[in-house]
């Protein structure tokens, strides 16, 4: 592995100062499950790395103004045990349960997964359908960016070099809502998604679909929403016919590629299967009006 300098700030202001002075030569390092791999295979050369693990400000999960706020250095493994995530972020927990392998889950962080911006990032589809925003801090202040805008392409985000992703927040899910996450890999464990999908639906008092959000991973240059499919569900009873149609429309939205993990055609077909399966399950989960 090539040599590099490692900075180890103790507080967030210190970290932002280091970034402000040294960006773009300074790269933040959280769990290292991507950065170290890139370094070993010479895909990237990093002059300086900044270790984020000592910044208490990036850890913890809390409720705040009807939102759940998640520190960006929260590990994937922590998502599996945190009671607030269990209650208000069930989809993210589902994604965490099938995220890579236990060893990687112990190191990898939610913030790192989003900043790496792989089209197959497993935390992205749940956050997209939960209408999450990311908070980016720099010496100039803090700004919020909606999830659907944050990732712009393969390994590309709106984060500026001097900014640090500090937290992720989403509104607490409504009572008559339900959702789910599912992925298809080359095997069940220790895999990247060949296709991943998350859905979130909310019913009104009459049991009709009030809102629907569908997000898909590994089928475009970034995790995407299937807006066309979402729109046809609104105002409708969530019956098999309309769910089938939403599945088809989702499959039409995507622009997958052929690679080692699967063909574009297979991915398109699996989008249809996953969306159909997740919507059916979610529709049944929401308890009908008494």
């Amino acid at each position, binding site marked *: 592995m090539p040599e590099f300098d490692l900075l180890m700030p103790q507080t967030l202001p210190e970290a932002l100062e280091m970034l402000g002075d040294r960006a773009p030569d300074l790269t933040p390092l959280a769990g290292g499950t991507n950065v170290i791999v890139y370094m070993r295979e010479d895909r990237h050369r990093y002059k300086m790395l900044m270790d984020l693990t000592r910044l208490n400000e990036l850890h913890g999960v809390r409720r705040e103004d009807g939102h759940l706020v998640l520190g960006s250095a929260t590990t994937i493994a922590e998502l599996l045990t945190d009671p607030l995530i269990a209650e208000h972020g069930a989809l993210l927990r589902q994604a965490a349960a099938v995220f890579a392998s236990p060893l990687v889950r112990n190191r990898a962080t939610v913030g790192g997964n989003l900043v790496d911006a792989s089209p197959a990032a497993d935390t992205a589809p749940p956050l997209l359908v939960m209408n999450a925003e990311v908070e980016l801090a720099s010496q100039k202040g803090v700004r919020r960016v909606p999830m659907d805008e944050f990732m712009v392409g393969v390994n590309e985000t709106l984060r500026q070099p001097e900014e640090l992703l500090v937290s992720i927040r989403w509104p607490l899910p409504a009572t008559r809502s339900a959702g789910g996450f599912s992925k298809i890999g080359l095997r*069940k*464990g220790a895999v990247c998604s060949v296709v991943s999908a998350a859905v979130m639906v909310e019913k009104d008092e009459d049991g009709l679909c009030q809102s629907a959000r569908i997000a898909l991973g590994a089928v475009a240059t970034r995790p995407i929403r299937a807006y066309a499919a979402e729109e046809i569900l609104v105002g409708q009873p969530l019956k098999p016919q309309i769910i089938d149609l939403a599945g088809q429309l989702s499959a039409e939205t995507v622009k997958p590629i052929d690679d080692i993990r699967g063909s574009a055609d*297979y991915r398109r077909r699996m989008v249809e299967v996953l969306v159909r399966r997740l919507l059916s399950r979610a529709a049944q989960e929401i308890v009908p009006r008494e």
Partner: protein
Amino acid sequence: MDHSKFNVLGKATQRKDSVAKVTGSERYSIDIQLPRMIYGRILSSPYAHARIKGVDVQDAEAMGAVCITFDDIPHVRYNERIITIPSVLHKDHFILADKVRRMAEAVAAVAAETEALAEKAVRAIKVEYEPLPVLIDPFQAMQSGAEPIYDTILWGEEEIQVENNIACSRQVEEGDVDQAFAEADVIVEGTFKTPKIYHAQMEPKSVVCRPESDGGLTIWPTTQSIHNVRILLGEIFNIPLSKVNVKRVPIGGTFGSSIQMNSVIPICAALALKARRPVKLTLTREEDMHDHTRYGTWIALKLAAKKDGTLLGAKMELVADIGAHNIQPYSFLGVCVGWLVSLYKLPNVRYRGTAVYTNKAPSCAMQGFGNPQVTFAAETLMDELAEKLGTDSLELRLKNYIGLGDTFWGQGPLVRSIVQSDGVPELLRQGAEIIDWENRPKPGSQSGRFRRGVGLARGFHTSSAGAPQPGDVIDFSGAMVKVNQDGSVDVITALMDHGGGTLDALAKIAAEALCVPLEKVNLAPAETRSTVYDCVTHATRGVYAGGGAVLKAAEGVRQELLETAAHYLNVMPDALTLKLDKQQSQGVVYAPSIPEKRMTISEIATRCWTESWKTIATVESYRPVNCPPAYVTVFVEVEVDTWTGEVRTKRAAMGSDCGTVINPDMAVGQLEGGLSKGMGYALCECNQWEPDGQIASRGYWVDAKTPAIGETPYVQDIHSYFADSYEPSGPFGAKGIGEAATNPVAAAYANAVYNAINIRFYELPITPEVILKAVEEKGQSK
């Protein structure tokens, strides 16, 4: 058979290495630390095919690293697998590449004080390459005008030209094939394709080499044969074998991948000799995935049969993708026809096998050495033949299989013996009952999302490569058994245990033969200078041949115990016998007719010691003169999801005829492991290569497609059972099990998927994507 007459055989006993393994105190090659030891790294080629124009190690040496390049190594060509006799051995390999022929091939190597410095130094080496066209397809490689991967190689001691990148070929013809096909009522045929998959052994290949002051070497390697490593190192470095000492180190799984001397071993030896210090060299996982695979094959098979189901003959053409080096495809081609003609009675057979070089990872042995590939083809066609004839495929198999009294040459044309134990009918009948074979679905009878299918395949592996004549395969074992002063026993053998418990079986055989409690039998650490030769643990031979050697030595010890006791007791030796006294928890020599004439083994050994007489010990070599088939039948029930193409294993019945079962727990483990590995081969595993010769997974587990625990069938869904069988030529009636357990599995899955969705697959793996596409093309998707 009735195990009650045995003291320890047939009973579940705890492995002697189990505590060390589960507590992490077992020391593998990678754990070896020596004083003054330094660390090696190899420089992996970034090209799959290139001439090396120059190597500049100045900067690396300036960092204090010891460097070796092609100029520093002995220019001796060798074959790292020496199981075939020297005169028919192809040799194309140097310690470091003379020319790069595959991705990540070692071009140079360094050794330095720390791993970090070694890594830094290896990156500082400058190599000038001249890239050459890369050949990843064997059929393109065979075309005239294709870039030659080799100009010449050695065949024995003779230098021969390589034409059209063909490494070697073999033809076999027996009987009158043309007449058999002319007389046939039915002919079935298919062209089958199987992938080059990675062994996925847990332990990365590692070695520690220490140069000795007498010019010799001590080596702690990952290997399946310490003696073959010694012979090769002696030959390459021109050191007397008496000065090359190779230690037996526990292996973290191999699946065949260490049957040859691993590529790191001679590199590390060269580094240690140059540095004059002990060196450790370990492959990274990425390097290891480029280092070895199973043989990829194309098999065109035709079977001819009469209306009544009697097989008449076969034609088989096989092309093997051997990758960049020759790790004995000559014997691979030989056994591949052996697998076919020893599976079913095929008196007339025409075979041509061709082994082709490509710029890919070298193919070497992997669980079955061609047997899973050939059995996939043969057992698929047997299913098709049964369907054509309108007969039950189980009955068709029973009618034609090679069984009791038949000639058997699984290990190739020169390794012939007669079958003396045969549990096949019992295995088939019992498995059919467990899986409810009679009521399996009719192909094409199902619709809807989930479809159930039941598949059957049978197979075997040879127990050793023994034969009445020497032949061209080297196969014999050796063992030493000695009685210690307190009556405990040391078993000393060079045999390797890949993790399946082979050495424990040997300890049990010694305990049984000497009527000694198992806990008093010790498996002594082994090294080449203090053990007699054992060829290699492969060919499902560990228990049968290695155990045979231990039994032979133990019988010598038993005889000496009787004679020694006869001397002390003043009784004729023939009047004495040996039994386990359970109350005293030790063996007792006694005269049945004169009860007071008795001595425990401990008393005998103690007197021999205190009266300054002798150690009771025997050393023996043992050549198996038979090669009995270890039979396995596999029934598997699957559920195919026609929405996603996924195949789930619902149930399996794994039946084994391994003769006397030495340890039932471990034998069941072999069957479960065989099912698991075979399932991966059938449904998921496939190394794909980019046009530039890079593995598409780049050597990362994440995309290596090896199944994990999530895909493995649940243990409670696997019904393992054993035939009531006794092999007359085996130690206490035992034969092998390991590779047999996996050989038919892929075929059973292919047949089960056919049964579920009425579509035949001729190419492995049968992935969800492949199934989905086929279902769609057949218009059955809804």
